[in-house]
């Protein structure tokens, strides 16, 4: 990486950090100002964190499987780096989903967890992608890890519709609130949620780019070490 590229990267990093920070502050402000729900009270405000994080988690998992499939097709390691980065960022967002959800549930349903269809599906998907990351870290050789990871990510996504039917069949009661439709939110609640979604997408992209930079630097270091070892021989 040349000095010019480095300085361009650091100015990009600065401006994207500032952009994300401004968006997050605006979102926090509107969440603070949003009206208190008449039924649930202040705990309803977790919605503005929980739902955007769901978007980040599902985006991450879907992109992991898609990038894995593209890696198997093109055998270009850049697709694999993208898949690994998406999985890590997706697991991060899903962790937030699984932390914020029970806090809301304890306040509203009176219990931390219930084996509801949507909760169970999300937990299973989370476990699949945590296993995906473990598989990658326990496999030696980047090419082998890429292949194994891609196969596992594709199989993991193929199971989602089957899990849906299986849990439905097993009588997993759906107590989770329905998808947010037009008019299902009270007045003044739409804007903070929309800003939350925007912040989540920006945070997703920000973390993804940072993570990709790290893996590219790591790959460059590996190449440099291999070159140095060759020249010594």
């Amino acid at each position, binding site marked *: 990486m040349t000095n010019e590229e480095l300085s361009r990267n650091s100015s990009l990093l600065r401006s994207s950090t500032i952009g994300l920070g401004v968006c997050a502050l605006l979102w926090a402000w509107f969440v603070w100002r949003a009206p208190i729900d008449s039924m649930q009270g202040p705990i309803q405000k977790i919605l503005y964190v929980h739902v955007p994080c769901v978007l980040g988690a599902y985006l991450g998992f879907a992109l992991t499987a898609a990038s894995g499939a593209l890696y198997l097709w093109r055998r270009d390691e850049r697709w694999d780096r993208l898949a690994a980065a998406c999985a890590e960022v997706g697991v991060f967002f899903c962790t937030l989903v699984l932390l914020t959800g029970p806090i809301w549930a304890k306040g509203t349903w009176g219990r931390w967890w219930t084996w509801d269809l949507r909760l169970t599906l999300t937990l299973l998907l989370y476990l699949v992608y945590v296993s995906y990351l473990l598989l990658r870290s326990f*496999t030696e050789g980047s090419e082998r890890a890429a292949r*194994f990871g891609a*196969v596992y990510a594709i*199989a993991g996504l193929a199971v989602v519709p*089957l899990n849906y039917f299986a849990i439905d069949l097993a009588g997993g009661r759906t107590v989770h609130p329905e998808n947010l439709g037009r008019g299902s939110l009270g007045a003044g609640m739409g804007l903070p949620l929309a800003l939350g979604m925007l912040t989540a997408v920006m945070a997703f992209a920000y973390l993804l780019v940072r993570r990709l930079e790290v893996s590219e630097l790591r790959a460059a270091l590996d190449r440099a070490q291999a070159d140095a070892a060759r020249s010594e021989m």
Partner: protein
Amino acid sequence: MNALLAVLWKDLVSEWRSRDRLVAMGVFALLVVVVLYLAAPPGAGPEARAHVPGLLWVAYLFAGVLGLNRAFATELENEALSLLALAPVERGFIFLGKALASFALLLVVEAATAVAFALAFDLDLWPVAGRLALVAALGAAGLCSLGTLFSAIAVRTQYREVMLPLLLLPLLVPVLLGAVRATNALLLEGTLPWPALQLLLVTDGVFGIVSFLTFEVVLDE
């Protein structure tokens, strides 16, 4: 097709000569049944016995994972796995041969475990034996198809014995739920619900196709 039969025959003959996997799986399944009985002894009423069919599947699942862990371990000796990968045949058929061998072994272990389970939990399985065998076979097919694919992956990672259950169990939920629901209805009501069988059939189909197609890439070295 010849490759399928050759791999299946090789695996069954080598198992017949050593009987390592079969004995290990059988003894382990028996131990699981004993541990489950001691940990969760069923009461007398139908309410208290409602969880019993699920326990049978816990024993099947653990024995299956133990056997699948060994499915490719023997292929690592003398670089046999590399030679399998070099064979000029469709690799999907190698997968089918390995999966069918594991399936056959698991069926034997399942039958023996069912007898031990019936004795331990005081169940009369004889009137539903045929239908229970069908459910056990459908569950074993799903377990062995995905299990064989992941066994080929896990055997070439660090901590290989730990890796297989970590990879397999989160994806086996549809098989487990379908099989437990069907076994529950069979043992408690004497009926076989079609939706549960449908789920098992579809899951077996999806797992079989995904594993057949991706095995090619897994063996690529």
